[in-house]
């Protein structure tokens, strides 16, 4: 926004400012009370050794942060989070786009399919995860299906790579419907005339998708990828039910690790330090995405 000098503004403009402040006041005050204050408290906790059970709360300075450097578990969790987030975001966005494009073809039954793909979004996460844990068993439904195709399916939740893939897939199917709807809406906003013009120019379907559709929906891609990345760092219940963080530490993502430290090991101080780290990571990632938008997001207003 343009820089404003407070010196030479009219009373009317000042009144306009006041309206502006009044309109943003609820969310700004809310952010201060329910986001910034709690975050500040978390930072304060992170400077302490806090054992909830023993009721000890001792100032230790930056000790918890020093401890992070030598914590192999944390390094593993960061790596697991990285893989999980990359896998989730890529798969989620590709699948959401694919579904949206398919649903945008005026095929018979589109309304029904749209409801099908959206339905997991409203289903309870626990019920969803439990069904999938049945399906992912060594002799479960998925391997049964693969056997029909002549493929000998892996023991999904018991190998490091497949367990990670399984957790990602379960999460993608659960939430891809929302992103699909956002993409679908964006696709419907792409003007038909542009497509026609390109077609007359002899551009093929793929070429038109890449050169016209993708740039035009890029603001939606940005929004969706921000939401999905932030969401991917909050995954918890699925991991708890499906793998418990295993095998080994392969699916112990950062939030799960944080949860373990805080609520299972009662290390609230250290957990708070991890929370601060998690926050910084999300902040940096989002800033990077936001900064990079100028390079790939078409006509960001």
């Amino acid at each position, binding site marked *: 926004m343009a820089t404003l000098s407070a010196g030479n503004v009219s009373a009317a403009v000042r009144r306009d400012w006041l309206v502006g402040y009044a309109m943003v006041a609820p969310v700004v005050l809310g952010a201060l009370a329910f986001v910034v204050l709690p975050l500040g408290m978390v930072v304060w906790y992170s400077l302490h050794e*806090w*054992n*909830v*059970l*023993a*009721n000890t709360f001792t100032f230790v300075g930056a000790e918890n942060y020093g401890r992070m450097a030598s914590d192999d578990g944390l390094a593993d969790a960061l790596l697991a989070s990285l893989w999980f987030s990359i896998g989730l975001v890529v798969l989620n966005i590709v699948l959401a786009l694919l579904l949206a494009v398919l649903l945008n073809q005026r095929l018979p039954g589109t309304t029904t399919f749209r409801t099908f793909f959206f339905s997991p979004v409203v289903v309870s996460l626990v019920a969803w995860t439990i069904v999938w844990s049945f399906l*992912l*068993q*060594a*002799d479960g439904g998925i391997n049964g299906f693969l056997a029909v195709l002549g493929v000998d399916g892996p*023991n*999904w*939740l*018991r190998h490091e790579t497949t367990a990670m893939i399984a957790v990602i897939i379960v999460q993608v199917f659960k939430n891809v419907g929302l992103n699909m709807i956002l993409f679908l809406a964006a696709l419907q906003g792409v003007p038909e005339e542009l497509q026609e013009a390109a077609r007359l120019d002899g551009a093929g379907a793929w070429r038109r998708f890449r050169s016209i559709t993708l740039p035009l929906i890029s603001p939606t891609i940005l929004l969706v990828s921000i939401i999905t990345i932030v969401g991917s760092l909050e995954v918890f219940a699925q991991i708890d039910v499906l793998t*418990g*963080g*295993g*095998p*080994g*530490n392969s699916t112990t993502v950062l939030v799960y690790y944080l*949860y*373990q430290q*805080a*609520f*299972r*090991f*009662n290390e*609230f101080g250290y957990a708070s330090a991890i929370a601060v780290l998690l926050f910084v990571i999300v902040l940096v990632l989002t800033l990077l995405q936001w900064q990079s938008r100028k390079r790939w997001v078409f006509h960001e207003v």
Partner: protein
Amino acid sequence: MSAQHTPPSPRLRAAVAAAATSSLLVLTACGGGTDAPVGEPEAPSEPVDLRMTVWTADEAQLELFQSIADDYVAENPELVSSVTFETIPFEDYTTSLTTQLAGGNAPDLAWIFESNAPEFVASGALVDLRPLLESTDGYALDDIVPSALGLWEDAEGLYAYPFSTSPFAMFVNTDQIAAADQTDPAELVASGEWTFDAARDIAAATAEDSGKQGLVVRDFDYQTWENLATVWSGWAAAPWSEDGTQCTFTEPAMVEAMTWIHDAAFEDGAMPGPGTTADFFAGDAAMTITQISRASALDGSFDWDVVPLPAGPAGKQNVVGQAGIGVFAAGEHPDVAADFLAHFTDPENAEQLAAYFPPPRASLLNAETLADANPSLTAEQLQAVVVEGVEDAVTKPAHKNFAQLSETVRAELDALWTEDADVEAVLTDTCSTITPLLEE
């Protein structure tokens, strides 16, 4: 918002604040101490409200608790105005309880999982109940089976009452076993040949015949490894030394026991492998090791029996699972809460609780008392499995650093649950990883 969520009246809040301040003073007087013993409660300036967190949501159980509590309120109107039982879902119990503690809203009393017991005992979060229970008329503290208290006491005091002390036993699907022409485990028990090897052979043969699974250690699922204690105890093996400082995963007994488990799963086909869950109660397995209280899950769709745990090379070892009730030092009225606990668990009320939870009191451990609680079990089964199953029983592994150990061992043992695992090498790795945690 709606009527039942109105905040407490100002008067009450003032009383609560006053009580909180006084208990704070008490705590400071005991040197920041948290595990100072409590004595007879002094009447607070106004009767207080007590809150106990539980993980049961069963109406009948909650009604029983409430009726016991109502009697107490009627007898002690100057102490207590109400007792509330707050249900927290099983899965989120520890999270929620910890958040309440961290948020400065500790409940007065709480149910505590056995795996958390040493941590709670060692941390000083709970008050010492022994002096009060010893001095309470008719409480008969010495009626409680000593082995049931081990987990809940240290050199200085006793920190919880183990209201549920439930032996592990072997349930068998006699339909499947008969169909596979295998010997009925009950016969082997009678002839003294009921061993883990015999159980394995029957399980493997039955699984092969039924196309289902053999022996399931319930709730183990290749994650909750501490449930394997029901097996390795037969080898007299344990994950760490009694004082909790030495890793004993590499002791010969443990290596032998773990090799037996590994082979039962990967070579003999006697146990379902990882990634395969089989529910005995749904008829998916020939036998299962679990607590007898699960008998209620049997719906009569097949014939079954329940027998004691088999003997291992080191003989037969009873194993119990427990849950305790403790009083939080950080609660607002620990003395009143402890007095209520003494009422809640006195012999008379313990007998009522026995309708749902196998009691730790010797006087209640007889087939007649237990029959009411377990209508699906015969007197002989109750005698063999429950009454005798509590004698000299061990609990599942526990440690004051248990949460971290449990997670770390789980991650290490994942390497064991593959077909070609080197048992000894995995256990050696496990020991080297957990030794620092044991020494902490």
